[in-house]
C-alpha cells in the first residue's frame, strides 16, 4: 500500500511515521519553499507540486492528483487544513479510484456548511445555540436579530474554520460592522462571504469529543478534549480528559457526539465540538471532519494510535476496535509552539533556527518538522511544534509540561514558548478553572525571585561572551599584523633545523 500525504509540516511527518509503522510506503508533496523541508526528506518518495503560495501547491487539487497518479498511490491522506475539508477534493480523489483517508465527500460538504451542520445536530436532538437559521449576506443584517437572540453574539463564517471569520458583537451598531469585517475575512480565507450569527455564551468551556465511524452506522467515541485555552479562537493548550468534568455530563456529551456521527453516517476520524456553559448545559458548535491538531493527547490517554487506526480503517473498511476497549488513563496536555510574538500582538515571526533543543524523556512527546538550520517563513501556518506530555495524574502532567517547556529552546526567531509557560503555571490553569475567554484578559505574572536571578546570570553570561569574542578578535588582528614578522623570523630559524 502506498499513501500520498497531501500536507506539509509536523502533520505530514506524523502521518508518514504511521505509514512506516504499518509497513506502507509514503509519498510527500512539496512546494518551492519546502524543497528541503523535513517532510520532503522523511517520505519514501517526494513529488514537487508547485510554487510556494499554497494556492499554487498544497491547495492545487490537480497538482496533488497528478502526483498521486505519477507515483501510483493507493490512498491520499489530507492531514488537517489545506484540502482536508474540501469536498470537491475528496470527490475527485475517489473518482480517480484512490482511497481518500477521511469522511465521504457528502459528509465533508455537510459539516463544511456550518448552518447545515447546526440543523443536522438539532434534528438529531443535540442542543444548538440560539442563532439565525439563515445566512446573512454582507450588509443585509435583519433588524432586531441581535436583540432577538440577545447580545453578545458571535458572527461566524458559514464556510469557516480555524478561528477565521469570527467576530464578537455587543450591540446593533457593532453587529453591522462585524458582519462586514467577518464576511470580508471569510471571503479571503474561504472564498465564501456568507456569515451567520449565534448567541455568545460566557463563561463557557470548549470541549470536543473524538469520534471514529466506519460509514456503516457504527460510531465509536474516543474520549474528550478540553480546548478552552484559546486566543482569538485559536487553540493554544489542550488537555484530555477535560479536568473536573462531571461524569454524567461527560456521558451526555459522548451520546450527543455519537448521535451527530450517526446522523452523518460518519466515516473515519472526526471531532464534534461543544460549548459547555457554567450551568452544565452544552451546545453543539461544529464537526471537524479530519484528524485534529490536538489528536496526540487522545492517543496518550487512550493508548490508541489514531492515525494508524484511521489508515487501517480506510484500507479495510471495517473497525477492529470496540467501544468497551476504549478507556482513558492519566492526563495528557498539549502546548502549541507557534512562530508568533506574544509581545507584538502575536504577529507571525520568521527566521533561521540557529539552535534547537527538543525536550525528551518519560511521558514527553514532540511532534514537529523542525530541524537546526531550518528557515521558518511566514508562507504557511505558524504552528512549528506540538509539545505533548502525559502523566498518571493531572499534577504530574503539569509538572512535566513545565519542565519540558523550560527545556524546549528554539533560537533564531521568537516563539510563544515563554507565554505557554506563563499560562501553564497560572493559578486558573493549575486549578482547571479556565473558560474560552481566559486568554483575552490573561496577564503574564511579574517575574519571581528565581527569574531575577536568572536574568542576572544571563547578563553575566552575555557580557562574558562578548568580552571573550572582542578579545579573540583583537588577538587575531594583532596576530595577523605580526604575521609577516613571524614569517621572516621563521625563515631565519630554518637554518637551525
Amino acid at each position: 500500500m502506498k499513501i500520498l500525504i497531501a500536507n506539509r509540516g509536523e502533520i505530514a511527518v506524523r502521518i508518514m511515521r504511521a505509514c512506516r509503522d504499518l509497513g506502507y510506503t509514503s509519498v510527500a508533496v512539496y512546494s518551492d519553499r519546502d524543497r528541503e523541508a523535513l517532510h520532503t526528506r522523511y517520505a519514501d518518495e517526494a513529488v514537487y507540486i508547485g510554487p510556494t503560495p499554497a494556492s499554487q501547491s498544497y491547495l492545487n487539487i490537480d497538482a496533488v492528483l497528478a502526483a498521486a497518479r505519477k507515483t501510483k498511490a493507493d490512498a491520499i491522506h489530507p492531514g488537517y487544513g489545506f484540502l482536508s475539508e474540501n469536498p470537491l477534493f475528496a470527490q475527485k480523489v475517489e473518482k480517480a479510484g484512490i482511497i481518500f483517508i477521511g469522511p465521504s465527500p457528502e459528509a465533508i460538504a455537510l459539516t463544511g456548511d456550518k448552518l447545515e451542520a447546526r440543523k443536522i445536530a438539532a434534528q438529531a436532538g443535540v442542543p444548538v445555540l440560539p442563532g439565525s437559521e439563515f445566512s446573512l449576506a454582507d450588509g443585509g443584517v435583519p433588524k432586531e436579530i441581535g436583540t432577538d437572540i440577545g447580545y453578545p453574539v458571535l458572527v461566524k463564517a458559514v464556510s469557516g474554520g480555524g478561528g477565521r471569520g469570527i467576530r464578537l458583537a455587543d450591540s446593533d451598531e457593532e453587529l453591522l460592522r462585524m458582519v462586514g469585517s467577518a464576511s470580508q475575512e471569510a471571503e479571503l480565507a474561504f472564498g465564501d462571504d456568507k456569515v451567520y450569527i449565534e448567541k455568545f455564551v460566557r463563561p463557557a468551556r470548549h470541549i470536543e469529543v473524538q469520534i471514529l465511524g466506519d460509514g456503516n452506522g457504527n460510531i465509536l467515541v474516543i474520549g474528550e478534549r478540553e480546548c478552552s485555552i484559546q486566543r482569538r479562537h485559536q487553540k493554544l493548550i489542550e488537555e484530555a480528559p477535560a479536568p473536573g468534568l462531571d461524569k454524567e455530563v461527560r456521558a451526555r456529551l459522548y451520546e450527543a457526539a455519537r448521535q451527530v456521527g450517526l446522523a452523518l453516517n460518519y466515516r473515519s476520524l472526526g471531532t464534534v465540538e461543544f460549548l459547555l456553559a457554567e450551568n452544565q448545559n452544552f451546545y453543539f458548535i461544529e464537526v471537524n471532519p479530519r484528524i485534529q491538531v490536538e489528536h496526540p493527547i487522545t492517543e496518550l490517554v487512550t493508548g490508541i494510535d489514531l492515525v494508524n487506526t484511521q489508515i487501517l480503517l480506510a484500507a479495510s473498511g471495517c473497525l477492529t476496535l470496540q467501544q468497551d476497549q476504549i478507556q482513558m488513563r492519566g492526563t495528557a496536555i498539549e502546548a502549541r509552539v507557534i512562530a508568533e510574538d506574544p509581545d507584538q500582538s502575536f504577529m507571525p515571526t520568521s527566521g533561521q533556527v540557529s539552535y534547537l533543543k527538543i525536550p525528551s524523556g518519560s511521558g514527553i512527546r514532540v511532534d514537529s518538522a523542525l530541524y537546526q538550520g531550518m528557515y521558518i517563513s511566514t508562507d504557511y501556518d505558524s504552528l512549528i511544534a506540538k509539545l505533548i506530555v502525559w502523566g498518571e495524574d493531572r499534577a504530574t502532567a503539569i509538572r512535566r509540561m513545565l519542565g519540558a517547556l523550560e527545556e524546549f529552546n528554539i533560537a533564531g526567531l521568537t516563539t510563544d514558548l515563554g507565554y505557554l509557560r506563563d499560562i501553564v503555571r497560572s493559578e486558573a490553569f493549575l486549578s482547571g478553572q479556565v473558560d474560552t475567554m481566559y486568554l483575552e484578559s490573561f496577564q503574564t505574572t511579574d517575574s519571581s525571585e528565581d527569574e531575577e536571578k536568572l536574568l542576572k546570570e544571563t547578563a553575566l553570561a552575555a557580557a562574558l561572551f562578548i568580552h571573550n569574542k572582542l578579545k579573540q578578535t583583537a588577538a587575531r588582528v594583532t596576530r595577523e599584523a605580526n604575521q609577516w614578522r613571524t614569517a621572516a623570523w621563521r625563515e631565519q630559524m630554518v637554518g637551525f633545523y
Partner: protein
Amino acid sequence: MDKYHVTIGGKEYQVEIEGERVWIDGNEVYAGIHFLNDDGLFMLERDEGKREFHIKPREEDVYQVTTRGLQVDTVVQPERGHGKKREVKKDEGSINAPIPGVVSQVLVTAGDAVDNNQVLVVLESMKMLMEFRAPFAGTVEKVLVSKGQNVEKGDGMVALKRTE
C-alpha cells in the same frame, strides 16, 4: 578593566571584567565561560554549577540569548571611549508592518487624537486581517499608507506621538 552595560527588558546591569576577575553591579562574583561550539553555544561556570547558553546577534549590540527557561533580547554595550553609553534608539511611535501585506483599512488621519489600544490600520496578510492598535494614547503625526497599498516587512504605516 573592561566595562559592559547590559540591558534585558527594562533592567540594567553593569558587568566589569579584569583578567579572571568579574564584578556585576559592583559585587565580585566567580564566573567564567567555556565555548561549546563556534556557533554561539557556551557554558557559564559558577560556584554552584554550569548553565548552557546560546547567543545570537540580532542587530548592533543586541543579542538573542537562550537558556533553559528563558529567551530574551539582551543589549550588551561595551563602554566605549569616554565611558559614554550609546543610547539605544527606539522609535516607539512608529507602527510598522511586521510582515508583507496589503493595507485593508486606514482608520485614522494625521492630527487625530487616539486612545491607547485604538485600531489604526488593518492589514491583510496570509488571508488574515490584522489590526494594528495604538501602543499608547497620543496624536497621529503621519499616515504613511493608504487603502489597497502593498507594504513590505518593516515599512512604517503610522507615526504616533505620545501624549505628554
